[in-house]
């Protein structure tokens, strides 16, 4: 048994909210670099270079990469041998978000009620997903999610007979409908299998996987590459203004499902695919 004070959770989440909104992970930087080299459209190349310049300014001047600093999505993988003390874990998480968005000059984009729409003014609450895992460590992933791309995400409850072609159609439909609205080049997170909510959660989690890391499952890996190639033939391009770079990666997660179903979720993220990860 390992005892952990929840103030460590607050402190880490505060820092991670600020870090994620100003610095993209190395894999995203590499993917953008490769995209600049490969893009065929002159305007597309110009836009991609602006995105690189934008990232540089964000880090140097501490201005958020994007003004939509997102709703804070937080994944906590908690080792089953961890005991928390010093307060309620969930309060500590929200407090970390509150401090991070305040001290980091991040935009407060959360409304208390989806229909009454009054801003909470501190970007809380976060959306939190807990997993209990083996061991005595806690893995925290902070993934601020912008809503330009979130709004273009979809869930398809396909029939088993729709098969792999049905899955491809679902992903391509979601990406094409998103077009310029989702700030391409996008990262496409896909969840296949499970239930209605499980596939959506997998799609979200898929976005936190490095974009240069392919699935361990051979046919899924091939599907990821095939879909990326097809998406980049759509012509949408950087900014939706035409080109050969519409997505930087397709990340797919799968899970067992019911004999009667084939759920597919497509969670679209813009090029500001933010996630900070720490293990404490």
């Amino acid at each position, binding site marked *: 048994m390992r005892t952990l004070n929840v103030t460590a959770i607050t402190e880490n989440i505060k820092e991670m909210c600020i870090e994620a909104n100003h610095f993209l992970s190395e894999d995203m930087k590499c993917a953008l670099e490769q995209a600049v080299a490969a893009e*065929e459209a002159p305007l597309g190349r110009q836009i991609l270079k602006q995105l690189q310049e*934008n990232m540089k300014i964000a880090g140097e001047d501490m*201005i958020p990469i*994007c003004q939509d600093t997102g709703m804070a999505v937080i994944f906590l993988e908690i080792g089953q041998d961890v005991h928390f003390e010093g307060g309620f874990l969930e309060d500590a998480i929200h407090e970390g978000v509150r401090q991070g968005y305040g001290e980091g000059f991040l935009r407060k984009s959360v409304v208390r009620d989806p229909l009454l729409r009054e801003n909470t003014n501190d970007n809380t609450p976060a959306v939190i997903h807990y997993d209990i895992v083996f061991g005595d460590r806690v893995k925290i992933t902070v993934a601020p999610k912008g809503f330009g791309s979130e709004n273009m995400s979809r869930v398809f409850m396909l029939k088993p007979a729709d098969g792999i072609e049905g899955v491809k159609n679902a992903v391509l439909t979601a990406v094409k409908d998103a077009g310029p609205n989702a700030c391409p080049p996008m990262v496409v997170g896909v969840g296949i299998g499970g239930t209605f909510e499980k596939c959506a959660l997998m799609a979200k989690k898929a976005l936190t996987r490095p974009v240069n890391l392919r699935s361990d499952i051979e046919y899924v890996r091939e599907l990821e590459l095939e879909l990326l190639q097809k998406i980049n033939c759509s012509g949408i391009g950087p900014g939706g*203004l035409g080109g050969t770079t519409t997505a930087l990666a397709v990340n797919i997660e799968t899970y067992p499902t019911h004999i009667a179903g084939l759920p597919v979720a497509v969670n679209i993220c813009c090029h500001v695919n933010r996630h900070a990860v720490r293990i404490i």
Partner: protein
Amino acid sequence: MEKHVNVPLDDETAASLRAGDYVYLTGTIYTARDAAHKRMQEALEKGERLPLDMKNNVIYYMGPSPARTGRPIGSAGPTTASRMDKYAPRLLELGLKGMIGKGKRSREVKEAIAKNGAVYFAAVGGAGALLSRSIVSSQVIAYEDLGTEAVRRLEVRDFPVIVVMDAEGNDLYETAVRDYCRE
């Protein structure tokens, strides 16, 4: 074609801009997004005055992140324009000449742009840090209680945008994508 244009946008200039033009805007523009548009719509329905005169003005669909001390504004990139589609045709009838955002517009908005000789510009989505450098000053002029969604007057210098929809009814999102489609 690269052009340097002053804002507010006079009728002749607005009518001369073409889809695909890369334009640098200098002058005064205003911000308004979802909540401010809803309030302006309600004001119009009640016969009240709007917080800004639409005539020849340009609205930037944008809600900035907070400014650090000594800076005019925080990160300041465009938001998705289609959420304002419900409100835009009426504002275009009142003389609004330009909108800056990102993403597709409805048929009604496209028609209203052509009918009123206006322009829809795209700024690069997700480039909020870069775009903030072209904003010289920012002042809240209405709906302060809306926080990031308040209406702001911005002074901009060489603010980079691309003409997506023009007074002739062209739509760069449709034509440019066709050029690179390989399906």
